[in-house]
C-alpha cells in the first residue's frame, strides 16, 4: 500500500494515520484542532495508464485511433471504438480525448464544461444600469433559451431583468422627453 500524506494547512505538519477517521477533532502539532476523513484512494496505489492490448484475431473490434489495438469501450460522445490507451474514464462513462477536448473548449457538454457565461445575471445587471437598460431587455429575450449555467438558467431573473429594463427605459425616455420639451419651450 502506498500512502499519500495529509498535512495541516496551518503549519504544514504531517497528520499521522492515528489522527485519521477518528470522528472528532484532534490536535495537530501546532495546536490546531483538525478532523481528517480519509478514504481508500489515499492508501491504494495510483493506477497507471494502460497501453492497450494488441489485436489477437482479424475479426476483433479495433480502436479507431490505434487500429492494431483491441477496442474496449465506445466513446459516449462520438461512438468511436477506443482502446485502453485512448479511453478517458470520467465518472461512469468513457470518452475519447478529442471529444473531451472539444467539449471542454466549446462548453458544449455540461458534464465537461469548466466555464459558462451566466446570461441571467448579466441581463439583470444591464437592466439595472440606466444607460444599458434597453440592452437588458434585448439580452433577456436573446438568451432566453441559451445554454447558461450548468445548474440551470434562472428564467425568473430574465423576467425581472425584462421588467426592470422596460421600466428603466420608460423612465429615462420620459425624463429625456421632458428635458427636450422644456428646452424647446424656452
Amino acid at each position: 500500500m502506498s500512502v499519500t500524506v495529509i498535512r495541516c494547512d496551518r503549519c504544514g505538519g504531517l497528520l499521522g494515520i492515528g489522527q485519521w477517521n477518528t470522528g472528532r477533532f484532534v490536535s495537530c502539532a501546532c495546536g490546531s484542532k483538525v478532523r481528517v476523513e480519509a478514504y481508500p484512494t489515499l492508501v491504494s496505489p495510483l493506477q497507471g495508464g494502460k497501453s492497450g492490448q494488441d489485436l489477437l484475431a482479424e475479426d476483433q473490434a479495433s480502436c479507431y485511433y490505434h487500429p492494431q489495438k483491441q477496442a474496449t469501450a465506445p466513446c459516449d460522445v462520438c461512438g468511436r471504438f477506443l482502446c485502453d490507451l485512448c479511453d478517458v474514464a470520467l465518472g461512469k462513462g468513457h470518452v475519447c480525448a478529442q471529444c473531451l477536448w472539444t467539449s471542454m473548449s466549446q462548453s458544449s457538454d455540461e458534464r465537461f464544461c469548466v466555464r459558462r457565461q451566466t446570461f441571467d445575471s448579466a441581463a439583470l445587471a444591464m437592466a439595472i444600469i440606466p444607460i444599458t437598460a434597453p440592452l437588458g431587455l434585448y439580452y433577456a429575450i436573446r438568451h432566453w433559451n441559451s445554454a447558461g449555467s450548468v445548474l440551470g438558467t434562472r428564467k425568473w431573473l430574465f423576467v425581472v431583468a425584462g421588467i426592470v429594463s422596460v421600466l428603466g427605459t420608460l423612465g429615462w425616455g420620459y425624463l429625456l422627453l421632458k428635458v427636450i420639451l422644456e428646452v424647446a419651450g424656452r
Partner: protein
Amino acid sequence: MEANKTIKHFSGRRWLSGQSLHLADDYLLAVNSGMFQETYRRFYYRDIQAVIIRRTGDATGMIVMMIIMLVASLLVLFSVDNETASAVMVVFVVGLFLNLVRLVAGLGSCVCYIQTPVSIQRLSITNVRTARRLLSELAPRIEAVQGPLSQEDLRRLLAESLFQPAPASAPAGEMPQAIPVPPAVNEPPAGTPTQPVPAQGDSLIDQVTMRHPN
C-alpha cells in the same frame, strides 16, 4: 455516459460572487460565481482522498463582538423616542440577533479542504456544522464508489509505518538475522609494502628516522 440528471444544491449562493457546492451523481461540483460567468470544478467521488477540516476559532471573537453590539443596540433602542429611529434600530437588532444565532448554531468556524491525488482545494464552507453535514453527505457517496476504509486497514497502515516489515523469506517462528555479515575485504596482493600506523607519541621522530636512517 449517463448525464447527471440530479445535481443537488448543498451550500452557498449563486449570486455575484462566491462559491457554492452541489452534489451530483458521481462528483462534487464547486461552482465559483463571478459577475457574469461561472467556473466549475468537479471532484469525482472515486478521486477524493480526504476531507480535512480545521477549526479556526474566529467565531468566538465574532460572537463576543455580536453580543456587545447587540447589548449596545438594545440600550440605544430603549433610549430612543423617535419612531423612525426605533424602527431602524429594531431592524438592526433583529439582524444582529439572527447573525448571532447563525454563528452559535454553526458551532464555530472552520476551513475545509478536499484532497485528491493532484490537488488540495479549499472549499467555501466556513462553519463546523456545515462541514459535518458535508462529511455525512459525502461519506456514503464516496464509500459507494471506493468502499470503506476500515479501522483494521488503518491499524495495519499504522503498524507498517511504525515497524519495518519482516523479510518475506524468513520462515515463521525463526528469528531474522539481526546482524548482517559484512562483505569480505579483499586481501592486498602479495608483495605490497604495508606501513604500520605509527603510534601517536613518537610518530614524527620515527618517520624522520626512517627517511634519514643515517
